[in-house]
């Protein structure tokens, strides 16, 4: 009796197994619409006169997804102030508004090499750094590291200065880490 039941059970199981195998196929994968990373950044340096008015003299640098700059080296005027505008793109769409909407947890820091090459930086926006006034001093090659921190405590003492060496103490993590190669003449 048991053998009969078992035979039927095996037959039924075999049928189920056949159905199971036939129905076990993966789904066709979809193309990705990855929007996690910025894939382009544009930085515009607009020359300012002594009164702070913008001129037509603008230097533009574009970074691709790998962080490579074009042009690789840009020339600026020595001892001059510039309005620095940073534009962030994903799939050719400007997404600065996302950063502005989350202003409380985003901030750019700027570190010049040599450190004396930037004498001052003033945030023109809500302490984010997408729009600011940078004053260069001295001649020669300058490297400026632009670091966008996300999730930091902007009220922290080490998050106040544009070039705070201890910015990590305010928490958060890097969203953008690029370097501007400039030559001041």
């Amino acid at each position, binding site marked *: 009796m048991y053998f009969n039941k078992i035979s039927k059970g095996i037959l039924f199981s075999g049928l189920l197994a056949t159905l199971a195998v036939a129905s076990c196929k*993966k*789904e066709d994968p979809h193309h990705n619409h990855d929007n996690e990373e910025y894939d382009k950044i544009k930085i515009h340096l607009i020359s300012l006169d002594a009164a702070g008015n913008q001129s037509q003299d603008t230097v533009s640098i574009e970074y691709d997804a790998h962080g490579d700059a074009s042009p690789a080296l840009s020339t600026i005027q020595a001892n001059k102030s510039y309005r620095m505008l940073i534009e962030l793109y994903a799939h050719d769409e400007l997404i600065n508004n996302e950063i502005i909407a989350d202003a409380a947890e985003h901030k750019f820091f700027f570190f010049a090499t040599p450190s004396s090459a930037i004498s001052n930086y003033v945030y023109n926006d809500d302490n984010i750094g997408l729009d600011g006034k940078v004053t260069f001093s001295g001649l020669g090659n300058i490297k400026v590291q632009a670091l966008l921190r996300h999730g930091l405590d902007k009220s922290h003492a080490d998050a106040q200065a544009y070039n705070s060496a201890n910015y990590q103490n305010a928490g958060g993590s890097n969203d*953008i880490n690029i370097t501007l190669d400039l030559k001041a003449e």
Partner: protein
Amino acid sequence: MSYLPKVRLAFLIGLIQSAALTVKGQSSDCTRTITIVVKEQESGQPYAGSGFTIAQQQGFTDERGTAVLNFPCTFKLSDDAVQVDGRVLKPQQIYHQGDSLFLTVPLYKKQLEVISVTAQKRAVASYNAQSSLSNAEMLQLRGKSLAAMAASLAGVNMIQTGAEIAKPMINGMSNNRILILNNGVRQEGQQWGAEHAPEIDAMSVAQIAVVKGAEAIRYGRDAIGGVLLVNPSALPYKSDQPEIGLSLVGNSNGQKGMADARIGSALGKDKHWAWRAQSSLSRGGNYKTPAYFLDNTGNKSFNYSLALGHKNDKHTIEGFFSSYNNEVGIFKGSHIGDTLDLQSRIRNGRPFEAGSFYYTIGAPRQWVKHQLFKLNAQFLLNDRWTLDALYSFQYDRRREFDIRRQDVSSLPSIDLKLAYQTFKAEAKYKKNNWTNILGVQGDLYVNNNTPDLFTTPIIPNYDSKALGIFALSKLLRPKTGWEIGLRYDYYNLNAAGYNSRNEYYGGQHTFGKLNASIGMSTDILDGLQWFSNIGTAWRPPTVNELYSSGLHHGAAQYELGDSTLDAEQSVKWINSLKWESKQKRLQVQLDAYAQYFGNYIYLDPSLSYVQSLRGAFPVFNYKSTQAFFWGVDLHGKWSFNDHLGYDLKASLIRARDISNSNYLPFIPSDRLSQTLSYGTKVSGQVSNLGIWLRNDLVNRQGRYHANSDYAPPPEAYSLFALGLSSSFALKGSTLNLNLAVENVFNTEYKDYLNRYRYYAHDIGRNFSIKINYLF
């Protein structure tokens, strides 16, 4: 000591009654502690891990085949009150000596049960080194993760991503190199990920056992480093009273509360039916190191299970369903922007953020749902033939939420859906001292990514099919035993996906592997046993090893798979010596093993970087190499007298990349755990009042290849834990109470196997209270 078949019951009743006499005049809540010893009838060998029921009290025997239970002094045993693995014992199978009750199990029944896929109520009866946790240890460990519970066994460690996400590691092997058998079913989730914990409700587990050898014959691929067996209690067949239990656990660190409730009973006129419903829930907030809180490390879970079975002399048929639902926060300080971030955090040694306590779980976080259904049947065709069959379906959904851009912040970055089915059938034939098993196992997997999450899936969609055929033969004599096994496995994987450049990738991978094992045991001297097993095992490369192609945000590294990787194959030889003194005052188990890999797959640092607008990320490639592992595990117990005991567990592992003459990363350092315990009986109501003091010494991992990791291994550390345990008899019910304080001195430390060590210290002092009430 002799068998007393005719007068056994009278003696047993006398034993209990004598206890009653000794406490005459005390209240009816008086209890007496009885040691249960389960042995094989023919050989007299311990019957480890067996589930037994004595007058509605259930338990599992430890690796020595023993367990301790408390009975009311007025208790009397009825004719069918003793069961082992669900079988009612006959009077001649029960005898006593002092306060010990001996249960003997016939050899043929034991063998039929032992290697059963349907009734993994005991550790595997192979000649591999194995050990299990006792009931008392399970009570003390309740509330911990499954990996943390298993890690209290010698030779078992855990690899952690914080305090909540922990994976077991057996003899230096984890992820897809070990197999977890959950209630007799191969546990399948997304175990390829180091930060993916087993999806098992640890509160529902009644028994944990580990088999350290390569068990590829019984279980197929992945059982390279060993097998971890986790089981719920046996269903309460034949039970006269409903089974009701309640467990409550509270932890000070994380202010975590856990509760587990279960109810079950036997059904029907002859009580051949039985059922159980169980549920647990937990909620915890941020953990605290000795000096600071770890932001976003809260967690919550809700789990339940249902079981129904029918058992008679001819068959056992059981159905089981469980649902595991867990949400856990990922420590905010581990969210890394780029390598610069990572390096600055490692230099700092602790988070930059000042943490605080809260229960809210924010991004990054993991959300996991795992459902398991199984149907198993065992047919005892006659005294020689048994047929076991099992079907199981598992559905696993894993969502991982990252800190994302504003418009998609509510979407998970990863959403994987795995459906897994397995069917296994075994026919067993027993004649004289021989047991022969022929089995077949089929597995089907489908793993899909939920599309349109605006991310590149970290692994492709895939389906896979596996088929294994195996044969085992075992010869058992009174003092020696032999076992030989052979298995052939076929495995096919078909993967397809698009990478971050939207290029199609994937393909078919087919593997066929033949594996063999041979094992033996022998009694060398009185009380000294030698177990030896040598076996081959294998596993196919996982999809991430084949196809990873992108940034692993959690680790801040760029991982590249290799679609040409071949299967990993190894041979492991493990020897185990077990010695027990005549008075059982001293017990020692020494396991020594050596394992060779012909094709060990690992993540190799390329020392190059990928540049992006976010910054630079180091590139790691999946490669294979020849590797050699060896090690020793020691577990000793010394009872100085009836009250004072000492327990020692030690493990040592050495691992080498032979091809490159290098060390392998993430190998546990040397560990030593010592426990001093004192136990006594206070009164009739309060039995087993005990206090224990434990010290865990973990050495620094000095065998380390400098370029294989971001940070060197942390320093050695020493932790103390102190506990108090007690059992109360409350009008036929038993209340177990455990109080403990872990990391007594609030020591600041980091563990090499904890991935958060780059960013933070391990957790600090924790007070816990555990209440287990059996109605």
